[in-house]
C-alpha cells in the first residue's frame, strides 16, 4: 500500500502540480489584494494619513441602529424563507422524479429574471393603489398599507431569495435515505418526532447552506430597501452605497470592512457545524 502511494506521488505530473497556479495568482490579485485596499481606505483619511475615526464612527448610535435594523430584517426574512422553504423542499423531494424536475425548474425560473425588475414589480403589486389593494377595494376592503413599511422590505427579501433557501435543502433531501424515516416510524416515532429526530438532522447541511445564501444578500441589500422601504428604512447596504455616491471612500471602506468581518466571523462559526462542501446550490 505504502509502495503504491509512493509510486503515485512520484507520478504527480507538472500538470497536476501547477494547474491551480493561475487560480492562486488570480485569487491573490483580485480577491485578497482588493480586501487589503478596503482595509487601507478604512484606516486612512482623505489625505492618506492614518486615522481610526472612520471605524469609531460606526460605533455611534446612528450607524449601530442602522446595522441592527439590517440584522433584524435579514433574520426575519431568513426565518420566513426557512419556514416556507423547508416544507416545500420536502414535498418536492417526495414527488415523482418527473414532477420533481418540473417543479424545480419552475422554482428556478424567477431567478433567471432580473431581480431589479422583479422587485420593481413587487412595488407595483403592493402599493396603496396597486393591484392587490384595488382588488380588495372591489370588495369594499380598505387598502392595506404595506409599501414603505418593514413588512414590505421583508416581503421583497423573501421573494427575491426564497429559491436560494429551497434549492440546497431540496438537494440534501433527495439524497436522504427514506428507509431511515420508515424505520423511525416503525419504531414508534410520531410524525413530528420523525421530522425532529431524523429528517431535520439529516438535512441540516442543506439548511445551513440555505440560511447563508439568504442571510448574506439580505443583510447587505440596498435596492430592496430603496424601492420597498419607507423614510426610516435605511439599511447598512444603503449607507454604504450613499457614502460611495457621496465620494466618501474612507467611510465606504470602513463600513464595508466592519460588515465583512462580522459576517465572516458569523459564517465561520456556522460552518463549523456543517461540512466543508457547502454551497451545493444546484440540485
Amino acid at each position, binding site marked *: 500500500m505504502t509502495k503504491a502511494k509512493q509510486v503515485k506521488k512520484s507520478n504527480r505530473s507538472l500538470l497536476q502540480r501547477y494547474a491551480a497556479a493561475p487560480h492562486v495568482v488570480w485569487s491573490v490579485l483580485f480577491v485578497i489584494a482588493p*480586501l487589503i485596499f478596503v482595509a487601507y481606505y478604512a484606516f486612512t483619511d482623505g489625505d492618506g494619513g492614518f486615522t481610526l475615526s472612520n471605524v469609531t464612527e460606526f460605533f455611534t448610535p446612528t450607524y449601530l441602529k442602522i446595522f441592527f435594523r439590517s440584522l433584524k430584517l435579514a433574520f426575519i426574512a431568513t426565518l420566513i424563507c426557512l419556514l416556507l422553504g423547508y416544507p416545500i423542499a420536502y414535498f418536492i423531494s417526495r414527488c415523482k422524479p418527473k414532477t420533481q424536475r418540473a417543479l424545480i425548474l419552475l422554482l428556478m425560473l424567477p431567478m433567471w429574471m*432580473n431581480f*431589479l425588475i422583479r422587485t420593481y414589480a413587487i412595488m407595483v403589486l403592493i*402599493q396603496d393603489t396597486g393591484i392587490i389593494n384595488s382588488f380588495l377595494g372591489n370588495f369594499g376592503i380598505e387598502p392595506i398599507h404595506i409599501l414603505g413599511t418593514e413588512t414590505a422590505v421583508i416581503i421583497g427579501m423573501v421573494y427575491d431569495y426564497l429559491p436560494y433557501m429551497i434549492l440546497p435543502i431540496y438537494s440534501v433531501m433527495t439524497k436522504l435515505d427514506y428507509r431511515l424515516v420508515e424505520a423511525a416510524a416503525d419504531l414508534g416515532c410520531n410524525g413530528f418526532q420523525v421530522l425532529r429526530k431524523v429528517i431535520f438532522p439529516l438535512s441540516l447541511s442543506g439548511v445551513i447552506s440555505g440560511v447563508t445564501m439568504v442571510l448574506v444578500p439580505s443583510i447587505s441589500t440596498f435596492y430592496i430597501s430603496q424601492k420597498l422601504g419607507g423614510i426610516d428604512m435605511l439599511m447598512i447596504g444603503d449607507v454604504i452605497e450613499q457614502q*460611495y455616491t457621496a465620494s466618501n471612500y474612507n467611510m465606504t471602506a470602513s463600513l464595508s470592512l466592519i460588515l465583512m468581518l462580522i459576517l465572516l466571523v458569523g459564517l465561520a462559526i456556522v460552518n463549523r457545524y456543517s461540512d466543508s462542501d457547502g*454551497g451545493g446550490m444546484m440540485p
Partner: protein
Amino acid sequence: MKKFSTFYIALILLFLFAPIAVLIVFSFNAGASTSTMTGFSFKWYLELFRNSEILGALKNSLILAVSSSLIATVLGTAAAFGIHHMRNKHLRRSLMTATNIPMMNPEIITGISLMFLFVFVGGMLGLKTKLNFWTMLIAHVTFNLPYVILNVLPKFKQMDKSLPEAALDLGCTPMQSFFKVQLPAILPGVLTGLTMAFTMSLDDFVISYFTSGIDFQTLPVLIYSMTKKNVKPTIYALSTIIFVIILVMLLLSNLEKNSDERIRAKKAKEEKKRQEAILRAQKRRRQGKLQEEQPVSLLARKRRKPSFYLKLVAVICACSIAISVFVAIGLYGEKTLTLNVYNWGEYISDGSEGTLDTNQEFERYCEEVLGKKVRVNYVTYTSNEDLYAKLSTGAVSYDVVIPSDYMIARLASEELLEELDFSNIPNYETCIPEDFRGLYYDPDNKYSVPYTYGMVGIIYNANVVDEADTGNWDLMWNEKYSKQILQFNNPRDAFGTAFYKLGLDVNTTDTSVWDRGLEELKKQRPLLKKLVMDEVYNMMESGEAAIAAYYAGDYLTMVDNQAENVDLQFYYPERTNLFVDAMCIPKGAQNKELAEIYINFMLSEEVAIANAEYICYASPNSLVFNSETYKEDMGEEAYEILYPSEFDFAASYDQNCYKDLDKATKEYYNKKWEELRTAS
C-alpha cells in the same frame, strides 16, 4: 396530506410568479404607466427594438457573460484539477478559503473592494479611464470562479481514482489522460459551472454597478438607472421576451431529459427481452430441439442524441464567436470616433414614440457633413453627486456632461472642466439670450452652454386636496394630508423647501439657520409618505400620493400619464428654486473638438426643439421658446407653466438658485440630514 402539499406548492409558486405575471401583463399596456392598465397593445415591443440604449446594453451584457463565464470555466476547471491533486493540506485549505471569499462575501463588498483596486492601480499607472470593459471582465471572472470550482471539484472526488492511473499505465501522457479520461468524467460539473457562471454574470447588478465605466454599460446597470427614473413598459417587454426564451429552453432541456429516461427504460426492456429470449433458447435446446436459433435480434443501438448541455455549449460558443467577430469589426474595421456623452436619464430626445433620435441625427450629421464616422456613446446618471463621484475619481472619461448649476460651479472650482472654444460653437452667439449668460456658476462664460432651466413648483391631486389649501409651501406641512406628502430624497432640495417656506436664505453658511431648517423638516417628517426622487412620477400618477414638490417640466409629463381618478394640478409658491442645467466638457475629454461640435449641434433649431418637447423642461434657446410650432406643440397652458409671462428670470435666479457651498457647510447639512433620516 397529499392534497395539502399540492396546495402549498401551488401557493408558493403563485407567490413567486405573481410579480412576473404583473410585468408580463403590463408589457402589453397601451399607456406608458406600469401601474394602471389602459388598453392592449404591442407598442412597447416595437419601442424596444427601436431603443438602441437597451439593445446596446443587452449586447454588452451578453458579451460580458459569455467571455467571463468561458474564462472562469477554463481557469476554474484547471484550478479544481490542481486543488484535487494538491498534497499540501494547509495550502489546499487556504486556497479553498480564498476561493470561497467572493461567494461568501456580500456582493456589495466584492464590488467595492474591486473598485478600490482598479481606481488605485489605474491612478498609479496614470490611466485616463480606470473603469472599463476589462475591469468588469476581471470582476465577473472573479465572482464566477467559485461557482465553477465548487461544481467541478466534487466530480473529481467522485471519479474513480484508478481511471487516470490506468490511462497513464496504458501509455497516455498526463495531458492525454486529462482530456481523454478525466474531462469526460467531470464534464457535467464543468457544464453546470459554466451555465451558472453565465447566468450569474448576466444577471449581476451589484458588482457591475461598482465596477462599470462609461463605455460599457450592462443591462442590469441600465435598468437600475431606469427604475430610479420613470420605468417604461419597454423594459417589461424585454423581460417578457427573456422569460419566454428561458421558459422554452428549460422546457426543451426537461423534454430532453425525459426522452433520455425513456430511452434508458426502453433499453432496460430490451435487455429483459433478450434475457428471456436466451432463456427460452436454452430451454428449447435442453428440450432437444437442435436447430440453431439466433437470439431475437436486438434493435440496433441508437446513437444517443447530443445532450441538451452540449447543445447549449455549442450555442454559447457560436454566439461568443459571432459576438467577438462583431466587436472586432466594430473596433478595428472602421476608424470610428466615439463621443462619450453622460447625461441625466430621459434627458434627450431618443427616437421613442416617433420623436427625433438626436444622437443618431448627430452621427448622420458627422458622416454627411464632416465626413467622419462618429459613434455617440450615451450613458445616463441619476444625480449630480453620481456624476461628481465618477468625474472626481477620474474613473472614466467623458466628452460631454450636463450637470446642474451648483455642480458646474463645484467642478469648475476644482478644475475638473475644460474651457470651451466658442469658435466651434457659433450657435451660442445667436440663440442664447443675455439672461442666461454670465450666471453665477460661470460668470465669465468659460465652461458651459445652458441646456434647460426650470423651477420647482408644487404638484397636487385636486381630487384629494382642497383648492383653498394651495398656493404656498404650507401645503407640504398640512396635517390634513398626513401620509400623502412626498419630500425630496436629497438634503439640498429638502432643506430648500423648509428655507423657502420660512423665508430664509437657501445658500446660508450659518449653521443655526440650517438647524432651523432641520426643526421645520422634523415637524414635517411624521406627515410624509416617502422620500422620493424619480419614484415621484409613479406615485403621483397613480394617486398613491397627493402632494409633492417637483419640477414644472416633470409635472407636464405626469399629467400625460395620470390615472383616471387622478387630477393633477400645479402652482409655483412665491419663492422657489430655479435651476439651470448646462452642457460642459470635463477635463480629460478625449475628443474635445468633437464635443464642441456636439454642443453646437444640440443648439440647432430642429434638434433643440425636439429635445425641449421630449424633456418638457423650459429651454434657454431663443430658437425654441420663440418658435411658433413649439408653442403649438406644447399647448398654451403648458407653455405658460414653463415660461410664466410675468416672471423675470434673471432677477430671481441669483437669489433662489442653489449655490455651491463650502465643505464645512456641506458636511454639516449632510450630517443633519442623516440625523433626520435615521431618527424615528
